[in-house]
């Protein structure tokens, strides 16, 4: 594939993700941070995010699986997840986390369970999309091109 074709695909896909709210300006910030000294920065951070998220989701599942749900602990986990997802720009995941926290405050176990499902879903979605985007990126780099940036979403 031609570099500019790859780049166009990349841009289009980025725009879509931003429009649909999967990603927000924070992701652009990450892209901005990537430079010659750290060419794989975005990939590195996104990978860290995936790892951490899986751990957190696991903890959340376990926490909600208890007889007596510890809502404080649950809230702490959700808070953490909210922090990391917002740092990476995973907007929809972050929004579900906000809702999740409210449910924790209300000590609504059922609501929390549903929310957990929702957050898992959103996470998987953004994960798939980010992976696709990063694959495109790698292809561009491999083809010798520069990674284009969507300025309007910074």
């Amino acid at each position, binding site marked *: 594939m031609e570099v500019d074709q790859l780049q166009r695909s990349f841009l289009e896909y980025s725009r879509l993700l931003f429009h649909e709210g999967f990603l927000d300006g*924070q992701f652009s*910030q990450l892209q901005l941070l990537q430079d010659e000294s750290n060419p794989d920065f975005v990939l590195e*951070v996104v990978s860290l995010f995936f*790892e*951490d998220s899986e751990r957190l989701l696991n903890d959340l599942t376990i926490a909600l699986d208890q007889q007596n749900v510890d809502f404080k602990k649950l809230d*702490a986990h959700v808070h953490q997840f909210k*922090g990391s997802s917002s*740092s990476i720009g995973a907007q929809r995941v972050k929004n579900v986390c906000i809702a999740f926290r409210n449910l924790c405050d209300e000590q609504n176990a059922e609501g929390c369970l549903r929310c957990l499902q929702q957050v898992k879903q959103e996470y998987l979605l953004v994960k798939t999309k980010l992976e696709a985007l990063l694959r495109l990126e790698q292809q561009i780099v491999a083809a010798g091109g520069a990674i284009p940036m969507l300025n309007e979403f910074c």
Partner: protein
Amino acid sequence: MDLGVKPVSFTSSSASWKSADGVPDQFPAGLRVLVVDDDPTCLRILEKMLKNCLYEVTTCNRAEVALKFLRDNKNGYDIVISDVHMPDMDGFKLLEHVGLEMDLPVIMMSADDSKNVVMKGVTHGACDYLIKPVRMEALKNIWQHVVRKKKHEWKEKDFEQSGSVDEVERQHKPPEDVDYSSSANEGNWKNSKKRKDEEDEAEERDDSSTLKKPRVVWSVELHQQFVTAVNQLGIDKAVPKKILELMNVPGLTRENVASHLQKYRLYLRRLSGVSQHQNGLGSSFMGPPDAPFGPMSSLSGVDLQALAASGQLPPQSLATIQAAALGRAATKSAIPVPLIDQRNIFSFENPKLRFLDGQQQQNNNSKQVSLLHGIPTNMDSKQLATLHQSAQSFGSMNMHVHSQASQSNSLLTQMVQPPSRAQILNEINGSHALNLPSSAGQPVLSQAVPNAVLGQNGIENVRRPAFTSVSQPSTVVDFSRSQSTEFPENSFSLVSNSGISNLTSKLQDEVNSEMKASRGFVPNYDVFNDINQNRTQDWRLQDVRSTFEAQQHSNGRGSLDVSSSVLIQQQFSSNQKSGQNRIPPVRKAAFSVADGLGNTSNIGQQLSSSLVDNPSRIKAERLPDMGFQNGLFSEHFGQEDLMTAILKQQQGGMEPIENEFGFDGYHLDNLPV
């Protein structure tokens, strides 16, 4: 490289601020940032962002690790950024620690933007609060916090040196407020104290004319006049100008009064903190932050000082003793206490001594009123009464002291001192009655005083005046004078009346005869017990003196006891001051001195118990075996006051030690983590 900022402000950390290419607009490149966040994603992102700002970044994902980094490399960082929610330690707690121990600007951050959390950050002293996700722009400007802080500190020091009392006082306030508002722990206290000490120190320097102005010696009379004026105006309304007018002392400047007032206030605060639970005395004196001072009053330094103060112990002798005691300690221990802390301690303490001196003066004038107006007078009468009562028999006194000591360890540290001090002076001056030793109150007073004094930098001139005013203890005066730090005298309050009397009598003998530390004296168990219990350092000397005189006839004991006890006390006080590291060596020195004396172990135990214990534990705890003492002493670092006092006294010969000890006490003690 020219950072374009006041170089002065950045001496410590500016060195690391090297612009990438020496161009001014590269500032603040090289800013050393420590980032703490348990979220690996955020941590990585922050790291990259900060690096892009040309900062030097260190990351860690655990608060404890962060603290370790900070402690290992005291000046290695300019600013700390920390997450609020962390599994191993609350971010606010880390914030407090950093503020107290390293006094670095700390930025909190969190995905939580709720107002109460942000408010918490503010109240805990965070210089900024960032909401996650953190953007590059927010991080770009964090250098402003470093500059601001440095500028503030630099400015404070500048003010202090210029003797601008108002400013200093103002500056004094904020740190106090901030520190006190933090979650209570010694660390907080320490930090605030540190700042106050710095300020005090600067003030004292002014007063003592080390730099520019001729020193104003706050004699007992002068202090008394000061206190009278303050009381007339009301402690809250007492402003330097009015005080000056009321005092009507030619040659006294408003700045002198202002700085003295500042110290006085600190002293009062300290007293109220201590006295709160103890006697019901005004409890306005010992402030909570004076915790380190409180313990300081525990023995050794105090006794010596008390003796010195009482004039029984020639300054030179005392200094010698102390020097000997400290010398040993110094050589043995490797106390890594920053000098600055010491200074702070001393300066902090010194003002207190002054006050006590003033108090004494009053008493000497046969005014059995609590000199310190803030100080509850009931203590005076009580103490006097007790003193008199116990004067009857040494034995009864001892018991009396013990019981009293146990009851009111805190009392001792409290204001009671001034009245007792007066008592002591009276005694010394004339009556030889065992007023001092008998009442537990006396020790209390002395303790309070010494603590204050001890805390103060030896530079304090105040102490000297107090002693000088006492006609009898001319030696005391000399002693204080000889001490550039002026500190020690006050700290040697006679803690335990009964014990002290024995001790003082002995000590007095010793002192008068220029006893050296090497003299072997049979330690007086009672004395030590009392001392331990009372922990009134400042007034001990006075108690000692009076008791000594009274005792001389009754006891017939040689000065051995006194000297040994003095030595030991010195040792202990130095231990206390030097902080944990030093304590063991110091103690050994003390013990070795006392060696040969049958009672060494007892003394050591007593001393160590006193040193180690907090006032509450002062009850004549006898350590079963001296071996404990090391451990005990090390706990006792809070006894900085003692140490500083002692150190100060020895200033002449103990310069290095002084530095060593003075700071340690506070520093180590206040490390809660």
